[in-house]
């Protein structure tokens, strides 16, 4: 198991390098120029050249990449071109907010999704199943932007239970978490239901039934455990998405976060910030995948044995 872990971690290094190169090149190849955002009415072309030189933007792309990669490996994410603040500081402000929001949303989606999925599978083709699957369809197709505004209208404007927006107290976290969580619940419920139904038809379950075990015990102890393998994979893959994919929700609820930092920097072509945000998300996805694999191995003895 330990050698497997080390192998997996080592494998992350070339992936990380490839991801960093792709991020850097794509960013610099799309049209747009951060310096445009630094010029105000009245500044001269000479001042423009000065700014370009200050941020090394006048050097060849390969040289710029080399410098950036070197800095990143030394732990220096650089300075934001537009805000002039250290990128690590900007990430430091955004990341905890994203982790908080994403963490709770992930928790909500797993608990809610698994519960609904199990109920739907248990009541297959009966009205609770139809109801849940209808809700799942709605939850996965409605845009989170719209859900967010609707929740604000109901719970903040009409009922006055939660603040409309902001990131001041814990109560300001409730609506954004639900907004993101709804999509997650829908996804997890669907995967859980399919996996449960699939597992319930397997030979070993038939055997358990034949042995006369109580159906509820078979469902919760054996079928669910087995069905959790694809669910855990989905959840692990969702870590990266939840961290960076909350852009619209952060925007609607006026919350800070990695997603909104990324989009804002992208619009301003603030390369160092975009690169750092994408790197964070890439790392989150890589670690999420790794976590998924490890959990899978921990849950499935066959996988555990094959890698031992």
């Amino acid at each position, binding site marked *: 198991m330990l050698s497997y872990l080390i192998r997996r971690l080592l494998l992350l290094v070339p992936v990380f390098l490839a991801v960093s190169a792709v991020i850097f090149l794509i960013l610099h190849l799309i049209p747009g120029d951060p310096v445009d955002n630094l010029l*105000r009415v009245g*500044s001269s072309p000479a001042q423009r050249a000065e700014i370009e030189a200050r941020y090394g933007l006048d050097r060849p792309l390969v040289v710029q990449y080399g410098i950036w990669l070197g800095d990143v490996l030394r732990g220096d994410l650089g300075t934001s071109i537009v805000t002039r*603040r250290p990128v690590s500081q900007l990430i430091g402000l955004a990341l905890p907010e994203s982790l908080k929001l994403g963490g709770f949303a992930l928790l909500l989606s797993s608990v809610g999704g698994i519960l609904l999925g199990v109920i739907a599978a248990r009541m297959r083709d009966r009205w609770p199943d139809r109801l849940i699957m209808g809700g799942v369809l709605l939850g996965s197709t409605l845009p989170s932007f719209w859900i967010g505004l609707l929740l604000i209208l109901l719970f903040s*404007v009409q009922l006055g239970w939660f603040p409309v927006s902001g990131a001041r107290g814990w109560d300001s976290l409730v609506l954004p978490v639900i907004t993101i969580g709804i999509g997650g619940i829908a996804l997890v419920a669907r995967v859980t239901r399919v996996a449960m139904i699939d597992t319930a038809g397997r030979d070993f379950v038939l055997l358990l039934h034949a042995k006369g075990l109580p159906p509820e015990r078979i469902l919760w102890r054996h079928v669910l455990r087995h069905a959790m393998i694809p669910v855990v994979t989905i959840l692990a893959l969702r870590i990266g998405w939840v961290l960076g994919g909350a852009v619209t929700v952060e925007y609607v609820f006026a919350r800070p976060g990695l997603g909104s930092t990324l989009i804002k920097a992208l619009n301003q072509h603030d390369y160092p910030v975009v690169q750092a945000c994408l790197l964070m998300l890439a790392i989150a996805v890589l670690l999420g995948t790794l976590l998924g694999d490890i959990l899978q191995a921990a849950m499935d003895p066959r996988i555990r044995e094959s890698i031992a």
Partner: protein
Amino acid sequence: MFHTLRMRLLAGSTCALALFPLSLSAQEAVLAMGSAEVGVPNYNPLTAVNTNTAFSMIYDTLVEQDADLTYHPHLATSWEEAPDGKSWTFHLKPGIKFHNGDPLTSATIVEWIDMYRKSENSYMIDNVEKVEAVDDTTFKFVMKNPDPNLLYNLSSSFMAVIDPAVVKKDGENYGITEAIGTGPFKLESFTLGQETVLVRNDDYAWASPLAENQGPPHIAKLTLREIPEDSTAFLELKSGGVDGLLSLPTDYLSEIATQANLAVEKLPGDEVYYMPINVTKEPFTDIKVREAAALAINQDEILKNVFSNYGMAANNMLISALPESKIDPSLLISYNADKANALLDEAGWKKGADGIREKDGKKLTVALWTQSDSVFRRLTEVVQAELKAVGFDPQIQTFDSSVIRDQYKTGNQQLAVRSYNWTNADIIDWFFGGDRLGYPNVSMFNDPKAEELRTKAMTGSATQAERIANFLAYNSYVSGQFPYAPIYQPEKNMAYNKDRLVMPAVIHGGSMSGTVMQDVSVKE
């Protein structure tokens, strides 16, 4: 027992009265800044690329501009310009103190300007040779070249007066955790992209004469929130989460009218929508075709149909509050379809069966660039229809707002729909100066006569009156060459909760600045 309790309550309230005399109440207010103000990285005027409303609360400027763009005293009580424009003498109001207790004297100003010269915004004082302290409250700007625009620069929040000692001490961190000005409010906390909490400067006794209240502000604690999404900001106002929105999009004006507790305060506009015409691209190398395209734009129809009659039509490049916008009425550009048709006929473009004009077998097909934001898309479609009505065949090309500037640099645009925010005539130099072709000079306009007038307007004026005259000449000439068509001037609106805030009878200033906030109070 009851008696003693009442006695205690009475004693308590007397104490409270002693602590907070009527003029210094414990009012608190929460305002949301406009979405354009979101994301200001720090409160350092020396390095700021963009500023927000809170700058004018934390800092004061030497000179203040009223809503009509006239100049008024603030930290400087008066000033004199030498007749040759080579120097300006300013007189500071005595007794001004920074939030940390440091006095503001002429020596501070000298040190500040020295520091400014080394800053990224130094071009604001390009024409200043040096500043001399005459005595404690008198100082003299000695000019390299006369610069009647000095007052404009000094009234801008980029030239808000800082305490040089603190900026030096804090270095890169200045303006993030600490910002020391002389303004009516002190910075209590600043969370990037979230909110700025300000508390009243109880020592404030140097408000601009534009404010009625010359003492400390009525509001003791002012929170300025950053909300990027307009509909969220509106819901905050509706639910009472904020007491006012510093900038209300026009789309919400009708909604405000239906709410009994909400009201709108009109502020002067600082934005102009216009259509640059690339003078280097066929068929617009022909001035007649340019003029025809400009005259095809129906400003009144656009005002009515796209902007529901909020704001006003634009008929030259500058906002109408600027004296430099008052060019000869015959040079103003406004809708005249008959003339546009006649000009195109004259230029040899004949209408075909499909209504599209042709010349030498070529159709009058032109590219019309715009950005993806919804207001631009809506407006551009109307512009397209209006150009079509006189025989153009405009093809709309939409670009993301973050990449369109790079596209302009290619010089491939023919027509475009754009807007700018600026309250000074030097915007003509910015958009039509021959050394900025592509972007910001989207029209690719580079005309020897214009360059001559430009130099005269930018650097050849000794006094304010001369500068206005020179810019009038420059503006007139450029307008007559039709490198653009003016379209629309929006107005700015501030929305507030009438049950919470009391606004001053007249807003003195272009925005809800610190000077305006002096006279705002909270109903208790």
